[in-house]
């Protein structure tokens, strides 16, 4: 139950919208649920539906429309490389290919340690600093711009170290 687990956040979210329009809160609540569980579970959908007095089917429909919402489990970190036209004109495709080669995965796949899913995405409004990607995780979303394969691998190493550390700790 989001409202019980995150009372402050839920309250803040609902306050943004007129009380008779609380359906507007569906996207922020979905973000909250996703942050909580890594992806949006069926239970979370029902919970949000009940909170906003809409049908669970409608909640599912919204998740389905937007690419940033996940309704199934993926790698803990989703590395989303922009390969759209402006980035591609500056070598994004090659960057992604080499990165995948280094990680031993294909686009869309997750590294063998289950940590990083590598994806190709559409323009992220970072066209002048290609190659670039965003890292999505339960902590949020972070842009990494002007990347090289080395810098990207460095970041992944850092993540791996951090995860190992947190597992041990």
């Amino acid at each position, binding site marked *: 139950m989001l409202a019980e687990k995150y009372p402050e956040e839920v309250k803040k979210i609902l306050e943004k919208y007129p009380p008779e329009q609380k359906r507007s809160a569906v*996207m922020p609540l979905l973000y909250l649920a996703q942050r909580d569980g890594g992806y949006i579970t069926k239970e979370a959908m029902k919970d949000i539906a009940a909170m906003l007095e809409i049908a669970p089917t409608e909640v599912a429909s919204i998740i389905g*429309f937007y690419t940033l919402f996940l309704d199934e489990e993926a790698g803990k970190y989703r590395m989303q490389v922009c390969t*759209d*036209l402006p980035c591609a*004109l500056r070598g994004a495709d090659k960057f992604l290919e080499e990165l995948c080669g280094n990680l031993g995965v294909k686009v869309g796949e997750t590294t063998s340690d289950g940590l990083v899913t590598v994806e190709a995405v559409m323009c992220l*409004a970072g*066209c002048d600093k290609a190659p670039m990607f965003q890292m999505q995780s339960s902590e*949020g*979303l972070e842009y990494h711009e002007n990347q090289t394969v080395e810098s990207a691998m460095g970041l992944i190493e850092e993540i791996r170290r951090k995860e190992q550390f947190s597992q041990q700790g």
Partner: protein
Amino acid sequence: MTEHLLLCHRDIPNLHKLAVYQQHGGFEAFKKAVTKMQPGEVTDAVKASGLRGRGGAGFPAGVKWSFIPNNIWPHYVVANADESEPGTFKDREIMESNPFQFLEGVAIAAYAVQANVAYVYLRGEFWPVAAELDKRIEEMEKAGFLGDKLFGTDYSLRIHTHLGAGAYICGEETALLESMEGSRGQPRIRPPFPAVYGLYGKPTVVNNVETLTNLPLIIAKGAGWYKSLGTADSAGVKIFSLSGRVKKPGNYELPFGTTFRELICNCGGGIIDDRPIKAIMPAGASSAFIVADDKALDTPMDYASVRALGADLGSASVIVIDDTVSIDWVINKTLHFFKHESCGKCTPCREGCYWMLHLIERIEHGEKTKESVELLRSVAKQMQNKCLCPLGEFSTMAVTTAIERFPKDFGLED
């Protein structure tokens, strides 16, 4: 006097700090509007300034505000910070580095149409940007620039951020409103326009981030001053997002009427490896192709002149293509984008984008036959003038103009 009017954070360090912004005249314009001007006067000033929307369509901002009816309440202002057109990255820089000027603009627009609540709709990927904006908004509240009884008047205003979640179509204003209302971000039939039937069915002004960021300038320095910048049909300054095969891509704030050559060769430092420039897409992936000949390069970048070249300036996201790039590859990229982003509501766009992508892939994989290319062109033509919203039309612009203007790249004799 700073060099920049919108990207002034490049001249003033720490402009994202409230104190710094205030030291440089921050919120004086908003205060002036609220305490010294009638809402209608603000609208009139913006009308007189000639400010046109920077989100792509170039519609005069003041005129749009004047459509807001005064017999239906409440009114809303929504800042369009969805910025998802490939090649556009100006609004992000504004919000990250010069947030208060933008928020002051939102506040001025809200006062002009007497909205007491304004929303900033950001694309979901701007999650960290939104988190920062939330802090700025809080600071404004604390400093008395947002909240009840502003500057001792009866006017009250609140601003909230709202995040999208990865859908280009939500930049289209009616889809954006649907999304804000907690639905799938699919466009509504227009008319009615948002000015009459907008957020929650109420009169709503939707303006682009950059458009709004101009407002403090207009109120502070006057409509006449603003209008004197730029050209007759395109007043003021514009941020050009330059990307592609240039040495120095980035945002460049220039007066309207600056030539393509100036932007690409001077600001952008010319083409990588000094290759010849081949084509320009002046408005991102939605753009028609401009053949980059001398005539084109010397064309001033304003709405009318670019249109005369058979393209649109749109949001001025200039993608530069050199002779190392084959145009059919570019089309493959744009169609990937549109197939991915078509919302699926209307038949021609939903089916057409899917079909076009398959055809360009076939062409890319060697089937550069006259028939395939002709079929691609005819599917694009078949979509035109039928779609529910402009996205479907956008998807065809590059296709038809590429085949027409770069036939060799498609294996066709010219």
